[in-house]
């Protein structure tokens, strides 16, 4: 083997090893979450952990029922989706089909900047502006509620939804639009009945990814939802999400203890949820690109 061939071979090995790091990391994340968190499923039982109604991790004996947290996440996520999906899809349609070229560039940059704002800054702004507003509008004892969280998170899901839906809309073949125009359809009729219809799988993927972002969001949600680990009965009550629970309580735990393990177990739940959501979104994303 010549020196040059040896060198090539070495470089190829290094590149291949780097290439598979992503797989290694995903597997490692899963292993470490299981390693630290699995014990709790043994102590409490999977069913009781997922559907137990009491999350009292520091009382004696501690109770680890994550159901209030799951419901908290569901409330906030559904609320955020209800706000961000219609607005996001409408914005994507406007940016992709209607806006003139320069407006389009500016709007896209704006959306990108919205995506760039750190979640702790969004949480801070939600806390000091939206919180007091909701408190006074609904005459509540506290402005930090599921609704506040939903509105705040809607703005964090928006950039994801808009940019991915916009890609899907742009990917609709030109012939579709030309055919519609040739039949005498207006731009709006074409946009709504032809283009939006054809881009449905991509838009669905966009919505899924937006929801994935909301479920995993931590800092903002922790700052604006009030953090009460109780099953909420309305959007105007404080809730605590899965993510916020991990972030807020990990500092107080003893490493290797039950509470520590329970928080890792919540991590497992989150990891599985986002894994499924991203997998589904990926399936639908490919459907658009194939056409």
């Amino acid at each position, binding site marked *: 083997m010549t020196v040059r061939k040896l060198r090539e071979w070495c470089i*190829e090995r290094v590149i291949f090893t780097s*290439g598979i790091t992503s797989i290694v990391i995903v597997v490692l994340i899963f292993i470490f*979450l299981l390693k630290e968190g699995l014990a709790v499923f043994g102590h409490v039982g999977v069913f009781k952990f997922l559907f137990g109604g009491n999350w009292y991790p520091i009382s004696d004996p501690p109770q680890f029922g994550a159901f209030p947290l799951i419901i908290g996440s569901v409330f906030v996520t559904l609320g955020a989706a209800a706000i961000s999906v219609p607005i996001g899809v409408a*914005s994507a349609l406007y940016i992709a089909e209607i*806006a003139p070229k320069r407006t389009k560039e500016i709007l896209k940059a704006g959306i*990108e*900047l919205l995506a*760039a704002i750190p*979640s702790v800054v969004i949480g801070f702004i939600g806390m000091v502006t939206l919180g007091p507003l909701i408190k006074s509008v609904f005459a509540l004892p506290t402005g930090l509620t599921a609704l506040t969280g939903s509105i705040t998170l809607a*703005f964090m899901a928006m950039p994801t939804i808009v940019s991915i839906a916009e890609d899907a809309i742009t990917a609709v073949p030109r012939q579709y639009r030309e055919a519609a125009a040739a039949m005498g359809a207006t731009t709006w009729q074409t946009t709504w009945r032809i283009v939006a219809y054809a881009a449905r799988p991509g838009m669905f993927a966009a919505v899924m990814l937006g929801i994935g972002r909301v479920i995993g969001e931590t800092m903002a949600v922790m700052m604006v939802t009030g953090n009460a680990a109780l099953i909420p009965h309305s959007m105007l009550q404080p809730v605590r999400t899965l993510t916020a629970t991990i972030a807020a309580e990990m500092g107080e735990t003893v490493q290797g203890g039950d509470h520590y393990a329970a928080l890792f177990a919540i991590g497992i739940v989150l990891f599985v949820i986002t894994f499924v959501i991203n997998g589904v979104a990926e399936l639908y994303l490919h459907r658009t690109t194939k056409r």
Partner: protein
Amino acid sequence: MNVRTEQRIAFGFLFFCTLLAVVPVLVILGIIAYKGMSALSLDFIFGMPESGMNAGGIFPALLGTIYLVTGAICFAVPLGVLSAIYLVEYSKDNVVSRLIKLAIVNLAGVPSVVYGLFGLGIFVVFLGFGVSILSGSLTLGIMILPVIITASREALESVPKSFRMVSFSLGASRWQTIRHAVLPHALPGILTGTILGLGRAAGETAPILFTVAAFYLPRLPESVFDQTMALPYHLYVISTQVPGIREDFRFGTALVLLMLVLILNLAAIVLRYRFRKKKRW
């Protein structure tokens, strides 16, 4: 209803929705700039926090964030670029490359707080790095890996096939081709991705909560095994954990963090725009 009227109403509605999505950015920027500007001074940026963070400055937090981001980039960029080179230049469309792509998509979707748990489990506890800059940097590095890989892949794929063909036809090996005929042309794109990664790493709080961040540490870190304050965590602390912090300090901290992240992102946007314009092939 007349189709023209219908169209006008529909367009108006879509435009209104777009405003709803974009205007909050300006509102957020406006509020933070307006209320935070009065706190900004050299003493605030380059001073140590004093009397329970209610006086002095944010320098340890700012420097901590710079350290963390530098560490994350040193880890993620080589790995991410090599990984992208593998996907674009070496791999065929087989099970391995599809698994890698699936893994990247999933890494991009993992909640940031789960990265924090992972960093705690592997770096702090298992590898024994403790709560340190090293653990925090590695955790942030892993988090921005998908950003770097995706940007580098796009950059590499945008280099025309003919460049590689010419290089091969001159007898260059595969690596020589990548090194001299492909990478130089992909560099601006890779740089864009790196800057975006920087911005993301600078703003994230959840991954550093349990791996590095110190609540209050009014001195500068001395080694990679030290804890440090960090800007986003500092903002979290002074806005929720410590009551009675001066309002201009809270907004000032938010303003510094926001400017840091937005300048990085604007730089990336401008760079990408000019890169696309300049492409001659």
